[in-house]
């Protein structure tokens, strides 16, 4: 069953929220960099570099970005779990 949330003081909640926003900021920058900067804005420049049979920009647009996205969500889940633990949230079950 769900545990009751601990009675947090206002400042502790603010601290948790700040850390949360910082994590989001960093991860969304990575998201934008892979999804838009590498795959769209600089694709033609990157295409001049070859990675095996792949022009690099094309590879990012059709492969690399998706791998980056998966890692972004994985890192988010791990970091948030660490943050939760620091703030006394118990694991499920």
């Amino acid at each position, binding site marked *: 069953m*769900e545990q009751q949330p601990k009675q947090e003081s206002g400042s502790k909640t603010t601290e948790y929220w700040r850390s949360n926003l910082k994590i989001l900021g960093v991860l969304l920058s990575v998201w934008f960099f892979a999804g838009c900067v590498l795959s*769209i804005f600089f694709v033609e420049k990157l295409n001049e570099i070859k990675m095996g049979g792949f022009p690099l920009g094309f590879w990012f*647009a*059709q492969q690399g*970005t998706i791998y980056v*996205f998966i890692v972004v969500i*994985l890192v988010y889940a791990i970091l948030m779990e660490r943050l939760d633990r620091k703030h006394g949230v118990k694991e499920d079950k």
Partner: protein
Amino acid sequence: MDIQTWTYLIVGLSFALYIGIAIATRVRSTAGFYVAGQGVPAIFNGMATGADWMSAASFISMAGLISFMGYTGSVYLIGWTGGYVLLALLLAPYLRKFGKFTVPDFVGDRYYSNVARFVAVICAIFVSFTYVAGQMRGVGVVFSRFLEVDINTGVIIGMVLVFFYATLGGMKGITYTQVAQYVVLIIAYLIPAIAISYQMTGNVIPQIGFGSTITTGERAGVYLLEAIDQIHRDLGFPEYTGAFGPGNKSMIDVFAITFALMVGTAGLPHVIIRFYTVKSVRAARWSAFWALLFIGLLYTCAPAIATFARVNLIQTLHTKAYAERPQWFKSWERTGLIAWQDKNGDGLIQYAAGAPFVGKPEFEESSSGEAVLGTFGEPRLKNVSTDNGNELYVDRDIMVLANPEIANLPAWVVALVAAGGLAAALSTAAGLLLVISSSVSHDLGKRILNPNMTDRQELKYARFAAGGAVVIAGYFGINPPGFVAQVVAFAFGLAASSFFPVIILGIFTKRTTREGAIGGMLAGILFTAGYIIYFKGFVSGATAADWWFGISPEGIGTVGMVINFVVAIVVSRFTAAPPLEVQQQVERLRAPGDA
């Protein structure tokens, strides 16, 4: 056994499985019906989300689209998976923590207004119906090709099946059938991809294979992508891996479309609702990871299939004699998804850039309804020729559906693809139908019209609404509106310019007010709808040259979203702050742990 027997067998078995699951998971409460009792484990919710998310369009059409668009096709890959990241980071954990059942629930409660709730209900229903009609059509197409029944019969079979498990099991039934459907669809997608990758490049991993060298034939030893770029140059197409430039979309348009798809998918109610079904915020975050991993498996494979199919198609058909065309060409010719018009009378198939003729193929028929054949035995077309050298019409959907046949894979693989296409269409349809049903029974019925309704009554209405939605969806599947393509741009633009900004603002600001949210949603929707209606030919005379900043109607949701944000923020500044309890509610969303 032939393809048809295999198809009956595999599709039949998969349907029996879905029905068995529906009976085993039937529910008796609204919490079970709307959110599966909030007891779905993260990894199963990840699979269910994957199946929910990947529609008939992802399974059947996406690889084909990329195949014809090359680099530009990346907008779908980046847009749909990138939107998922937004959903996982910015929406899912908070909405799960908020509790409740639906997206309009959140909008109505956060903005303390039944008007906002009502606007959200209308958007949710519109977006869902637009989508579901496409799914039902997909079911019909698969049935008609593989089982050789009428498209309409196919739609009706699909309707009956979804009706059965959606009304019986609600979200719980849908969730566990979606888990099974994910397994079916991913196997069906990967097996042909692996086989073709091995055939062409000797590499069994398609994601690596399409960057490898070709093993046999005249282009042996050449990198596959270099070969396709060369072929494209020879035939007058823009390079496959090349971006922008003549014959392609501009950079700003690629960016706008990608972004509109991202925020549009993040705002799709049937996917958001999946995160209500897990037991905690932590589980919501993990199921988001599992879901993108499962989705990524198909999405990274699709561009590989696209490249293989493109090379295969051109190598098997270009400058080959029509009379010696392969068997798959003959079977797909009957569906009108592939056609040949011999413009120069040499009996050879010439493929080049540009449409071969005006419109979709329309075959000539004699007075007795027989196909009229040309000199080389081809069914004659009524369509008016264009003046370019291209003689071949290929529908993009063929790239996935006919892929196993083009690559000479065994009959059971072809049957598996049919079952996979059906799984993709049915799973998405079921998720959408649940959104429609909960919007009607819960948001409209319980929260707006009759708050005193008992749980039993509400459940009855929910089942009734789900049943009604299936019938309406089926009707649109059988009689698709002639403007389906336009309407799909609409659904994404609408989701991008309505839900996404107000949900984000609702979580990340306390100051956004009821007036701001309603104003923002209306401004975003009206602008986006107006632009799409104006430039999609409903109003004559407007052309691509008139697009604002070179942004196509498909990408305009990005601008609509910005307008929504700006209006919501500005209006909120000049209206009274939200009540204290709403501000406290937002505060609770930001605290650690489950609320």
